[in-house]
């Protein structure tokens, strides 16, 4: 698309005119076109038409509403910072929620329940006949109970014996029996229980007769009690 004013002057294309209007020409080219405009009315008219067309197009697009994101550029910094903080908080909460959901073990939930009740419930499971280890368990229990008493916090402790742990609760273990007697007298929140199934099997299979320490109560099944207590939210410790 080019025109000629006469045969001696080179044609000026629309592209060149557009570049002139958009001020994209070099100073030299621009001067040359300006010189041609003064003598070439047709060229002046074409430039005028194109200039008008560009302005009309520009004004038409100016009436289109700006997208929300662009409008936000003009809003003050504080609301944007508040939004960022709110999103950060939401992110933290969502992340924390996900973290909690991934904890699938009953223990966490159960312990939470215990804490919510504000009573700590502890199950100590005796399965070994090792007297030294048993005595150490009783010493640790004493310290635990004393510690809770000092802190004015509530605690319930149940010691459950099955398997070889039953032998620890036999009256023949004088030192253990003495310690259990003392502990039971001092703490009414402490109980001892022995598995009847184990005692029966010891008698039937091995001819062993167990005389339980008087402070020890008899329960049908040690293992069932251990499962039941854990389901109820008791903290499990192997003694």
């Amino acid at each position: 698309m080019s025109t000629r004013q006469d045969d001696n002057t080179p044609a000026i294309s629309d592209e060149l005119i557009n570049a002139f209007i958009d001020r994209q020409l070099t100073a030299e080219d621009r001067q040359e076109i300006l010189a041609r405009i003064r003598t070439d009315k047709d060229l002046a008219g074409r430039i005028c038409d194109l200039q008008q067309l560009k302005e009309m197009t520009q004004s038409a697009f100016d009436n289109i509403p700006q997208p929300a994101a662009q409008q936000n550029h003009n809003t003050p910094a504080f609301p944007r910072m508040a939004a960022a903080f709110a999103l950060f908080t939401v992110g933290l909460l969502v992340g924390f929620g996900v973290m909690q959901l991934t904890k699938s073990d009953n223990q966490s939930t159960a312990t939470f329940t215990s804490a919510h009740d504000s009573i700590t419930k502890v199950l100590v499971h005796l399965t070994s006949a090792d007297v030294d280890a048993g005595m150490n368990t009783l010493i640790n229990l004493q310290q635990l109970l004393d510690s809770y008493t000092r802190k004015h916090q509530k605690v319930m402790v149940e010691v459950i014996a099955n398997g070889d742990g039953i032998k620890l609760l036999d009256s023949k273990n004088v030192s253990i029996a003495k310690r259990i007697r003392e502990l039971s007298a001092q703490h009414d929140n402490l109980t001892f229980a022995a598995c009847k199934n184990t005692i029966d099997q010891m008698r039937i299979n091995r001819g062993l007769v167990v005389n339980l320490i008087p402070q020890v109560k008899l329960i049908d099944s040690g293992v069932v009690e251990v499962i039941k207590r854990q389901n109820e939210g008791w903290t499990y410790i192997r003694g």
Partner: protein
Amino acid sequence: MVKKLLLMIALLGICPAAIASHTEKIIYHLHNTNPNSYLRTISNLENMKKGMPDHQFRITILFQGKSLQLLNPALHPAALNKRFLKLVQSGIKLETSRDNYQTYAHKDQLLVTPALVPNVFDRIIELQRQGYRYITP
């Protein structure tokens, strides 16, 4: 630009919690002097780390009573002690009660000196409340 910034900030909030959700917290409670318990603990911990390479771990080994003597390197082959030290160097914590330490520890014979807590049972309760899983090897 602002949208991207807000998204990044929100992700910053989510990421630490997401990472924390992959942290396994475990208590190993040792309460006897059986060397097999020591061996089982080491093997379990090594297997666990191999089996869950994308997990982070917070592990505490609690020594109750005479089990503290398991930290005497003379009781175990050198290779086993080396494996145990490697685990400790990876961040596993060792703890015992002050009473246990005073009663059972021969200080110059311990492979690693454990941190001291007032009471082992109290510590187990506290850690289980914090979401630690309880294992007796």
